[in-house]
């Protein structure tokens, strides 16, 4: 009788902790940034449309997982390791472009939210959700681009809820592709510099979120020596 009780207890423990509950497993995320179907390389000229090309020198942005608590990650194109994450993704979570407004009003914290990363506006409270700097060249001119997109209050929110993550299994990781085509096509010499919360920053943020695509790629579980 006692043995049966132990077996039932053991089964309960296995059911609770042992069976594959996808939502309890970390979600592997990889990021790629594409323009005209090509991977964006920093400090390289890339074509936007036939007569316009860009050279991106800095690209950093935030992604959050919104669940019961928010986790925030900073991607930096100059640091390839930042483009790979293992995130907690409990059931019911959503991916969010940027830092949510609740986190924005709190004190800064060490880690991804440390202002030392240059993603915090010091002249006012708030994180820059997306920092893109570089040059845009047309047939007639070369103009600097500075998109410091942020804002979380007074109807100038730039954070965007991203589409639901596709159904996954433990053998797949999520690949998030950030398509820059629409964003970069919309930039003109007059709108190439955004340094504070504004409706234009909001529009750009919507274009960035609209350019997000998901894919599932197999996790390499048998690494080669």
């Amino acid at each position, binding site marked *: 009788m006692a043995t049966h009780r132990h077996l039932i207890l053991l089964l309960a423990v296995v059911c609770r902790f042992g069976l594959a509950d996808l939502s309890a497993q970390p979600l592997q995320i990889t990021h790629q940034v594409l323009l005209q179907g090509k991977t964006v390389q920093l400090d390289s000229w890339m074509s936007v449309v036939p007569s316009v090309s860009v050279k991106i020198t800095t690209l950093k942005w935030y992604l959050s997982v919104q669940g019961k608590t928010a986790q925030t990650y900073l991607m930096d194109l100059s640091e390839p390791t930042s483009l790979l994450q293992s995130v907690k993704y409990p059931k019911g979570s959503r991916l969010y472009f940027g830092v949510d407004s609740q986190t924005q009003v709190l004190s*800064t914290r*060490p880690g991804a939210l*440390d202002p*030392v990363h240059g993603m915090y506006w*010091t002249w006012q409270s708030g994180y820059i959700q997306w920092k893109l700097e570089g040059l845009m060249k047309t047939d007639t001119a070369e103009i600097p681009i500075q998109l410091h997109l942020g804002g979380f*209050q007074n109807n*100038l929110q730039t954070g965007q809820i991203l589409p639901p993550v596709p159904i996954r299994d433990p053998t797949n990781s999520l690949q998030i592709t950030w398509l820059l085509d629409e964003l970069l096509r919309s930039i003109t010499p007059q709108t190439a510099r955004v340094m504070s919360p*504004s*409706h234009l920053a909001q529009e750009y943020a919507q274009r960035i979120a609209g350019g997000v695509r998901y894919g599932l790629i197999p996790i390499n579980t048998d690494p080669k020596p």
Partner: protein
Amino acid sequence: MKRSVWLFAVFVLMGCGMFVVQRGRGDIRGRARKAFITYQQLKAEGWPETVYLFGQNPLSDAGIALGRKLFYDESLSADGKVSCGSCHNSYTAFAHVDHKLSHGVYDREGRRNAPALFNLAWSQSFMWDGAITTLDNQSLSPIASHTEMDLSLPAFLERVQRDTTYQTMYRHAFPGEPMSLPRLMQAIAQFELTFISQESRYDSMRRHQIAFTPQEQKGYELYKLYCADCHKEPLFRSDAFESNGLFPNIQFPDWGRVEITRNPKDSGLFRVPSLRNVEVTYPYMHDGRFATLSQVLKHYSLRTLKIQGVYQPKPIVLSSNDRVDLLAFLLTLTDRQFVQVKELQDPRGFQK
């Protein structure tokens, strides 16, 4: 017997655990405890609930000491000459009295009058336009500002990290944590949270320890009639942004709150500062345009300027006697004790 041994062991372990928690939080016998008690007393006296989230950054003596050193350290600026204390002088309730506008590294001039600093735990936002939403993040602004300290945040962190005194102080303030910018900012906030001004003549009257003179009392009644809507007791400030009828400064165009909200309705609005210690926090207004309280009262009694699209409050009609009485009341808001507290002054000056 066996059971009592177990119980004894459990109590010993619990005791050790509590000791570790206390040690981990740092010592709270000195300034931190005094501040904690003061906050409790003020709450009991009917002051409003504090806004600051103390749970995120509990005060400790070591944290306050670290914040004090950072606050007065000029080496943490681009030219090594400007600290927080350069524009926020303890003797003048942490205001800046020798210039209309604060000036920073290489004598660069800012565009606003450095505000006085005290009773910050009750503020929902900071700066004249409310740009900053938490005290913990406020110090980032002057450090990085081109016209103030002009030091990049990584450079600031690096300078603190390589200083052995700071290393030791940080270990005491935040045991077991690697040095980080957010924690350093919290240390400055801890020091600033000890700027509690609550020992003015007005406070003594409120506690029934003294009575106002007839002139002060009349001034108090005038204050309640004309000023109290914006400058609310007992803090004599509010978190609102208001227009007080100032004509825009043509030399330094500054439209205040609208620069943060981008809402045209907020054009020309500025934070309502505290009237506490107003005697020692001259010059007045966001651009320091008035040097004396008499000039301020004259402005309020004459303001009739119409600015396009900006709400203009009505003039406050005061006789010359009224003005003197109101001034007499405003002087009761000076906290002489606060501006002389040695623990709030530059520690190097104190050692001298």
